[in-house]
């Protein structure tokens, strides 16, 4: 039990970063398709099971892994060329290590931190590794020995320098407000209420959250700030010379970086793993009531999902009967979950701490996937910024705004504390 609880956050880090990548690629394609009035991937299947198209991204990954590892002969610095994508991948992956997935769990007076790396310096770790991720891009662009690659790398580095400043300064105003740099304490701060709103960073510090979200987009090289791989100008930017899984690592690194900054935005601005207004001890004390709520929610959502699937899964495939299998799985899982939850809700067993932990995982996951949706939604809405506009926005607008925000925040925080 002890080992399991210590390893749990590590496993969750792997799940949230690596295992969500196929799902994210699938979400990207499906959401893009639906936004553009198309259908998206719906053909790829394993014996008739398509999982709504997720099999397509698994097939793509298989393709990238088994493709020939081509090494262009003009490349002199082979070591740097080969190490660059793994550097980008690794730093994106390590960024995730400090995100708290649930409140610190206390069982038998022993506490288990639900961060993969139990440190209070989470924000600094995030900034360090988010910055290092760009190093992989710069190294790849330089080692590729190709003018498009180096142009992409230069763009990426200049952009990150410009936006990292604004990102750091917007974080400073957040740190002043919360009075801590521990991500766990930030989350528990956000369980209070602010007038009638939950005291989320989004409501307390709207300006800082907008600046942070914009800079997070720029930091992960996502649209509309993806001038580093602007295919209309510089072929594919820094990964022009990369193929097979070396390209795949860059591709995965972009999604993991997106997931990591989404996770940090959730933690700092959207209340993290906590439900609004409720802190962990309140959750533990009222756990039965919450379970009944979840049971009702599960019934309603699975019924809605089944109705929706019956309407939309009309495309007959050879092999197994998809609709029937999904219906069985959904109904079976819902009944199983309801049985387990009502066992605890009726008071036969006592596992409130673990239950609250699972609930917090679920809340975190839902918020994280909402953030992923927003990232994808923005990508398929906004055209790419012109490169000089990107720089102008970063240095001329976001930087002064974040500086001004620090001053205002400091004055307000000092004033409020003085009054007390």
């Amino acid at each position: 039990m002890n080992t399991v609880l210590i390893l749990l956050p590590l496993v969750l880090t792997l799940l949230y970063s690596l295992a969500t990548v196929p799902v994210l690629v699938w979400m990207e394609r499906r959401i893009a398709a639906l936004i553009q009035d198309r259908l998206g991937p719906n053909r790829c299947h394993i014996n008739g099971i398509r999982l709504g198209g997720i099999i397509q991204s698994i097939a793509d990954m298989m393709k990238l892994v088994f493709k020939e590892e081509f090494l262009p002969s003009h490349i002199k610095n082979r070591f740097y060329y080969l190490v660059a994508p793994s550097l980008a991948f690794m730093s994106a992956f390590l960024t995730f290590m400090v995100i708290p997935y649930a409140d610190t769990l206390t069982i038998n007076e022993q506490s288990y931190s639900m961060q993969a790396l139990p440190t209070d310096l989470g924000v600094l770790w995030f900034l360090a590794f988010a910055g290092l991720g760009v190093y992989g891009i710069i190294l790849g662009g330089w080692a590729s020995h190709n003018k498009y690659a180096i142009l992409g790398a230069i763009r990426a580095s200049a952009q990150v320098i410009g936006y990292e400043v604004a990102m750091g300064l917007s974080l400073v105003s957040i740190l002043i407000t919360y009075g801590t740099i521990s991500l766990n304490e930030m989350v528990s701060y956000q369980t209070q209420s602010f007038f009638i709103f939950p005291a989320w960073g989004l409501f307390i510090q709207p300006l800082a959250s907008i600046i942070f979200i914009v800079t997070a987009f720029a930091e992960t090289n996502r649209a509309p700030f993806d001038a580093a791989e602007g295919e209309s100008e510089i072929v594919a930017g820094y990964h022009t010379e990369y193929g097979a899984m070396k390209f795949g690592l860059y591709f995965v690194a972009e999604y993991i970086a997106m997931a990591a900054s989404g996770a940090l935005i959730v933690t700092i601005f959207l209340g993290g793993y906590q439900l609004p207004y409720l802190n962990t001890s309140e959750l533990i004390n009222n756990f039965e009531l919450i379970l009944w709520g979840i049971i009702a929610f599960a019934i309603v959502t699975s019924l809605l999902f089944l109705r929706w699937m019956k309407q939309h899964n009309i495309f007959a495939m050879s092999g197994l009967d998809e609709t029937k299998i999904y219906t069985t799985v959904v109904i079976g899982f819902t009944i199983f979950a309801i049985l387990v939850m009502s066992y605890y809700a009726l008071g036969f067993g006592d596992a409130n701490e673990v239950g609250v932990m699972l609930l917090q995982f679920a809340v975190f996951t839902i918020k994280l996937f909402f953030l992923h949706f927003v990232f994808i939604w923005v990508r398929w809405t906004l055209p790419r910024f012109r490169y000089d506009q990107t720089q102008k926005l970063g240095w001329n607008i976001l930087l002064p705004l974040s500086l001004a925000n620090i001053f205002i925040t400091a004055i307000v925080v000092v004033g409020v504390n003085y009054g007390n």
Partner: protein
Amino acid sequence: MGIKVVERHGNTFKEKIYLHAVFSGMKTTLKHFTANLRDASNLPTLCYPEQKPTDITPRYRGVHRLTHRKEDDSIACVACFMCATACPANCIEIVAADREDGRDEKMPQVFNIDLLECVFCGYCVEACPCDAIRMDSGIYSVIGECREDFIYNKAKLLSIQGISKEEFSLAK
């Protein structure tokens, strides 16, 4: 000459902070997303092998066909080589022969079109003085297992049906 004064955008404060335009754009895309998620049956996507296109008109340049004469259903082609001459891809092979039935002087003995060479430009149809070759078959996908399958001979070309109202050659 009137001077048209074009209104300049992007100078007001509202436009300069981008956010208003960003959010209104996101609203539009979200509307599309939710509407399509709720009811995907309105999407114009064609699930191709199962659903066939319905908008193929007689003017669509599909696979060629050789037309027949209205009087006796014989071949309308007189082996004048106009189509083979006009063809930019050089994909039409004609061997002329004397015509025995007295309808005309010549007819093709061999008339092969190599569809792998053909660029479907329609010049042969334009060039034909007898309305003997047409591309109104409406066939948009040609399938074969070897290269020889794509060389359509005279019998094959004569057997293809058109989708236009005129079935026979209109030449007088």
